[in-house]
């Protein structure tokens, strides 16, 4: 792939440094490479020492790795962020209205904007939530929306992560690391701070407590120390000053949830859960789950506890529902979407499937319920054999797949083994919905460290960068 055709965050088509990168580029050009290497080694050592690691699935239990950290920041100018932030608020607002609608009147289905069976037969649709009122009518309290930049630099939403999005701890730790490694850079730039996030999160969680609870007890619920994001769970609980609990630490009595403490049972009002729906209550969902709390759903339905994100919210971030989000924005808000969707073919539709099969070598084909970048085909990077294998799977199970054009993800200068080179990046800002919709100016920038790679997932060799949103 030729990098020339990709939008470059730092330089324009003529090779000139973009204005918001000018000062940084200046600084970088005066920085000897050995010094950069030294700083990178320092960062690695610090991340190791703090134990900022993630567990890897499929390897020995307890295997922990660092997510590679790149020391060159991704910089977003103030006006660009303003548009992004407005677009994100709009999108998340509509998504919350959609979930509420689906679990109540289903007006959008009645109006014929989305085929009802698409929603109601979706594995993420939870019938048990039908007619259940939740605090402040919020379902997706924490959204991690993945954005990419393509073409001439316009932003596209790649997916809305509304279940248990992770990565915010890296947003915070990356900033701390940058400030530690390069304190003087921060006097050249007015970088919007992100460290309020845990405070905003705690406030939001407290604001969605069940009605009548004046001083709510908030907990973070983790599947346990072997989960890939355990570090983040422990980190957020610690930063908010709340307990980090596992399912076994809680029980349900008379439609209220309690945690077992050394001083006896203590009532829990808001659960920030990092456990998937399927595992959260063995009485309601998977009976073999040992990660959940028996009876939690019942207590939740009765309004005795708030679960964030809401059970059943996954119906709105499924890849098969994604193509309808612009429609949701028009339907609920009467506005035109500020952020673009990636044009998406739904293989369940005959004509779409035919198109996809004809253009496999150009498209990215994704599993509808997949996550983590495992069950996908990146056409331009795939071998003939891989394409043919995928073709057979597609013909067999078209309903399981969607396809999108291979986006020319933007590049950002990155310090790799061979020196400073362009690598593809994406952006995940975190949107909080409670009393109001809030977000800190920033997000997690993920970078595909392998040359030419478009897959930024940490499980597939991706790294992260600090994300600087500039203040006006």
């Amino acid at each position: 792939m030729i990098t020339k055709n990709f939008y470059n965050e730092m330089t324009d088509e003529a090779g000139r440094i973009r204005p918001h990168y000018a000062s940084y580029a200046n600084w970088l050009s005066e920085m000897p490479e050995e010094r950069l290497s030294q700083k990178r080694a320092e960062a690695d050592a610090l991340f190791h020492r703090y134990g900022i690691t993630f567990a890897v699935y499929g390897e020995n239990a307890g295997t922990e790795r660092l997510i590679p950290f790149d020391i060159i920041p991704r910089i977003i100018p103030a006006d660009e962020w303003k548009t992004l932030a407005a677009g994100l608020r709009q999108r998340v607002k509509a998504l919350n209205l959609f979930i509420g609608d689906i679990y109540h009147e289903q007006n959008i289905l009645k109006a014929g904007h989305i085929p009802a069976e698409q929603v109601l037969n979706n594995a993420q649709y939870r019938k048990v939530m039908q007619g259940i009122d939740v605090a402040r009518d919020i379902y997706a309290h924490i959204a991690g929306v993945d954005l990419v930049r393509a073409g001439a630099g316009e932003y596209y939403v790649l997916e809305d992560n509304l279940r248990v999005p992770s990565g915010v701890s890296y947003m915070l730790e990356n900033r701390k690391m940058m400030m530690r490694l390069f304190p003087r850079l921060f006097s050249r730039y007015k970088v919007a701070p992100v460290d309020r996030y845990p405070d905003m999160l705690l406030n939001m969680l407290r604001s969605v407590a069940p009605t009548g609870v004046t001083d709510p007890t908030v907990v973070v619920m983790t599947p346990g120390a072997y989960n890939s994001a355990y570090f983040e769970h422990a980190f957020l609980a610690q930063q908010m000053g709340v307990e980090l609990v596992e399912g076994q630490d809680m029980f349900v009595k008379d439609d209220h949830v309690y945690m077992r403490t050394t001083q006896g049972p203590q009532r829990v009002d808001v659960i920030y859960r990092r456990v998937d729906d399927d595992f959260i209550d063995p009485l309601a969902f998977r009976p073999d789950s040992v990660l959940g709390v028996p009876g939690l759903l019942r207590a939740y339905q009765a309004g005795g506890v708030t679960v964030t994100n809401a059970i059943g919210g996954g119906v709105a971030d499924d890849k098969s529902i994604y193509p309808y989000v612009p429609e949701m924005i028009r339907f609920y808000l009467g506005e035109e979407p500020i952020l673009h969707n990636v044009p998406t073919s739904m293989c369940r539709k005959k004509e779409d499937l035919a198109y996809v099969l004809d253009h496999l070598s150009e498209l990215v084909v994704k599993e509808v319920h997949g996550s983590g970048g495992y069950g996908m085909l990146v056409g331009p990077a795939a071998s003939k054999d891989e394409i043919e294998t995928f073709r057979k799977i597609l013909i067999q199970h078209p309903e399981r797949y969607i396809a999108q054009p291979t986006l020319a993800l933007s590049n950002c200068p990155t310090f790799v083994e061979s020196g400073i080179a362009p690598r593809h990046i994406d952006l995940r800002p975190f949107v909080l919905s409670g009393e109001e919709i809030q977000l800190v100016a920033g997000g997690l920038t993920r970078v595909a460290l392998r040359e030419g790679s478009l897959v930024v997932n940490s499980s597939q060799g991706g790294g992260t960068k600090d994300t600087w949103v500039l203040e006006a």
Partner: protein
Amino acid sequence: MLSRTADHLYWMARYMERAENIARMLDVNHRMSMMPQSQIQEDQAWGATLRIMGLEGAFHERFADITPDNVLEFMIFDDTNPSSIRNCLRAARENGHAVRGTLTSELWETTNATWLRMRDFSREQFFDVGAGEFFEWVKYRSHLSRGVTIGTMLQDESLRFIRIGTFLERADNTARILDVKYQILLPAGEAEGGAADYYQWSALLRSVSAFEVYRKVYRDLITPARVAELLLLRADMPRSLARCMKEVYANLQGVSNAQSAETERQAGELEAQLRFGRIEDIVRGGLHSYTMRLLDRVQSLGNRIADDFLVPVS
């Protein structure tokens, strides 16, 4: 504090202490095996260690014969033996990992590093450095983790549960170590109070770092009653039952909750009996049966603590 958090802290401390004490117990045998004795006596001594730990059955599922090498393999490296030193250090680390946010980074790093070293420790290396050196290493890692605990942890509930774990485990283990001597027969033709007897008692004292202490306290010959007194009743001896129970009782009072009154009373009663007990009375009633009763009470106290504060033992 979450009961599970307290539970992990308590077991982290117990497993670290257990690793140390198993090293100490094996060290007694190791030292005794260097004294002149018949093969039968030596094997019998190793068998006694297994019996005292309640691991004879588990051992025979893995090995046919009790030989020094088999027992060392089983007690140090064996993955099927929950009390092997390797498994103890792993369990200490796993428990620490589950609550690493509650530990200071120094304590977490120490616990983690100990396990990583043990994990990479091969049997060849073990025979290279020798059993004695290895047991020293285990003891020093345990000393280090205790030092880091006391030197860096906030003196709150977390520390108290760690201390309860340490001293309850040590109480159990010291009682068992004392009983090792009871289980080991004197070589044929050797009289009680003779040379072989002396070496066995001194090996036992050394295994709990009490040989010099004994000399300092009694300035006299080594006699069984005094060894027992030192290990059971002397509250100034850091590994004695009296000391351990004093610590358990004091720390329990610091975490007291609505249902723990009876547990505290039992701990206090045991502590008082050790404080005011006389060795003559204990010896008259039989040291072995006294030790066995002590072990029962320590174990039942452990169960009560689990029920009142931690994750109940199912």
